């Protein structure tokens, strides 16, 4: 594949932004990830799928710096990334959502999404205490971005509602909103459709596609639901028992015998 190409629906996919090279992650004696390499290209929707316990979430945690692999390298924007704290990685433009919603339940939708702007706020406690001047200006600028996100996700009606009082599907949307507010270069979504009904899944799929299309955000998502993944992603990595068993376009993956076996449950020789 050349450095950049244009998809059937007219989106431009650029060179890799993130490269995972021979990643191995162990927890004591358990090997969660075994020697996996793949890349995520600019502007694409990249899915990581696999059965339960395949190591998908661990992989996401490696990408956003929560876990440090024992072996292998992470390359971001063509440079090898040194081990660093997750918040520093957030500063580099990687935002994520969580499998189990991790919002501030007692705060409103608006305030929750505002926290997504945290990495972009520069004024310190002193200025914020004084409020008038730089802090106020900054708040207004950031609020504008947050309001655009609210408009984009069509959650105006719950702007001032406490997140804890919202139904699950909407909470997921608020969480996506918080990640979007950070205006990330790379957006990581951990099972964005888990526990949703069909209608909510359709809505969420639409939003994921729209985010990618409107803002050109690169998206990596973990998902259980094969049909959703196959419909919205450009390329798919398939993991099973910590190893990569497939990588390619949805069609290639669908016809991959190893993937079929993993999903249909062929007996493994060793465990």
């Amino acid at each position, binding site marked *: 594949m050349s450095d950049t190409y244009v998809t059937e629906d*007219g989106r431009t996919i650029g060179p890799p932004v993130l490269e995972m090279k021979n990643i191995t992650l162990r927890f004591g004696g358990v090997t969660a990830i075994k020697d996996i390499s793949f890349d995520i290209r600019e502007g694409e929707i990249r899915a990581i799928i696999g059965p339960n316990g395949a190591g998908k979430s661990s992989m996401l945690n490696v990408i956003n710096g929560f876990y440090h692999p024992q072996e292998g390298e992470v390359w971001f924007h063509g440079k090898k990334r040194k081990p660093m704290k997750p918040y520093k990685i957030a500063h580099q433009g990687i935002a994520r959502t969580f499998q189990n919603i991790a919002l501030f339940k007692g705060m409103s939708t608006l305030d929750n999404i505002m926290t997504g702007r945290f990495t972009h706020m520069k004024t310190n406690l002193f200025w914020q205490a004084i409020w008038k001047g730089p802090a106020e200006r900054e708040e207004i600028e950031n609020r504008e971005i947050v309001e*655009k996100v609210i408009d984009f996700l069509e959650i105006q009606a719950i702007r001032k509602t406490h997140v804890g009082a919202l139904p699950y599907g909407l909470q997921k949307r608020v969480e996506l909103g918080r990640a979007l507010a950070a205006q990330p270069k790379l957006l990581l979504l951990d099972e964005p459709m888990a526990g949703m009904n069909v209608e909510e899944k359709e809505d969420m799929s639409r939003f994921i596609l729209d985010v990618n299309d*409107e803002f050109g955000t690169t998206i990596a998502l973990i998902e259980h639901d094969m049909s959703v993944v196959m419909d919205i992603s450009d390329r798919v990595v398939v993991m099973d028992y910590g190893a990569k068993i497939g990588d390619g376009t949805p069609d290639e993956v669908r016809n991959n015998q190893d993937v079929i076996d993993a999903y249909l449950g062929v007996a493994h020789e060793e465990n």
Partner: protein
Amino acid sequence: MEQNKVLPDGLDTFPKLLARNAVQWAELPAYREKEYGIWQSWNWAEVAENVNALAMGYVALGLNEGDHVAIIGRNRPYLYWAMLAAQSAGAIPVPLYQDANAEEMAYVLGHCGARFVIAEDQEQVDKVLEISDQTPNVEQIIYFDKRGMRKYDHTSLNAYEDVQAEGRAGNQRLAPILAERQARLDENSTCVMLYTSGTTGKPKGVVLSNTNIIASSIASSEFDNLAPGDSVLAYLPMAWVGDFIFSIGQCCWTGFCVACPESPETMQHDLREIGPTYFFAPPRFFEGLLTNVMIRIEDASKLKKHWFHKYMDHAKRVGPDLLDGKPVSFMDRLKYRIGDFLIYSPLKNTLGLSKVRVGYTAGEAIGPEIFEFYRALGINLKQLYGQTEASVFITQQPDGEVRADTVGVPSPGVELKIGDNGEVFYRSPGTFVEYFKNPESTKDTKDAEGWVATGDAGFIEESSGHLRIIDRAKDVGKMADGTMFAPKFVENKLKFYPNILEAVVFGDGRDNCTAFINIDLGAVGNWAERNNVAYTSYQDLAAHPDVYGTIQEHIEEVNKSIAKDSMLSGCQINRFLVLHKELDADDGEMTRTRKVRRKIVADKYDDLIGALYDGSATIATETEVTYEDGRKGSISATLELRDVKMVAA
């Protein structure tokens, strides 16, 4: 049709009104919309500039004079401007219902032959594209919201702001063309075409001229002293004539401000933020709001509940009189002031109705209880009667003469007459020109002298001069002695009692009236629970002697109120029974929108009607029922029939 000039000179078309407003009220806000959490507003000068740029853009794209321009979307300032721009370019706006399905949309787009469609967003564009093989007449689609539109083939798609930009860029060339076209418009040019929903058959395109719309706007604005500084919330469908009159007609005439909600879901919240002074809503809106209030009061603390009920009782006693300026004693006034401070004002504020100076409801009968509740709070809620063919206004209630059971006096400039069969006819400057491409329907509805048949039966009350609508004309009959029989009039009175869910009244061609009653299982069941009345099913509860007693009391009260009506006193109910099953759409007894199908009910329960008229005290019957899954069963019951006291007229 009257050809004499009724409009003021120089203000007989919307482009002229807009030009006047842009000078006279340049700095006054004309339209507002909440977007990104903030109320954005545009003053008249900005509106005029936007409309002008869009109109020139239309011309650049090839819009011809007399073309129809379809507009699809929810209430947004940009779409109102799209309508004004169509008029500025000599074309005719045709707003469509945004929730119309593809088939309806294809029919209307094909029927009006629109070459241009203005769609709000991707969703509406998709709908138009989906039916494009049925509507080859559509040449250009202009969309406002760019989201998701990037990948579409843009050979016949245009972004709203791009069209405006093109118009601005071609100003030198296009402005003179626009001016020429506007000069050719006059009061008889078509202002707008609106499709009536039409419960039977295909929708009809009602052609309304500048005279129709502007004269109606002037008359109604003067009737309620609307002025710059007033504000409305535009949330009812743009395709509805009322919204066109409020948000374009009266707005451009009086210069008041139209606010558009952020999204349909935030309407209630936006209503509260805007606090409109002029407000319209259908009865079911007020009903729903009242139910919400009552539910929340039930959940409130004891003290709040006590105060609420205490002061609301007082408000119901003196509130309407205060509103009508009738004499009220000093102590009652004082108590009302206290109630206002404690209850009424905070409540009105929560509902977003604090500032309402003129409120209207129309469309169907509103329960007197509901109506009185809002009046008691000091909200000047009134009723009007109108239809698309009249540019809304036929009758309306003047301040100080507001009652739940009339629809008011003829609006300024409207003449009324009642036909031999009781049907209401009207003639006014607002009377529509014709149904588009449908001379037959036009002839059936409007006669050579300009009188329009409403399809409603009613009469003018002698004492007050108010019109009262009693029923659809086709349902009104005559009783054996020749007095008028209006079933819906009686049924509505019965249905205002919470215990009565449905009522069907018979009497056409008979000596007296009888009724079938359906009890409301929720309300009556609640009563049964509180009074330790055990029951197993609807049928069981419906046959309970106490229930019969309560229903009988209600009917006797209704009879008393009907007796006061000289025209309809013959419609008092003589005998009734409580049906052993609820009327149901699955059995074909009602429409899906819960309107009783009179004929089917009469045929199906022929035996019961017979018993009502032959004097028997009970009747055994068996009825077939259809379950939701389509299986059939039957229920048998022995029903009691009761006589009701009637009151001498």
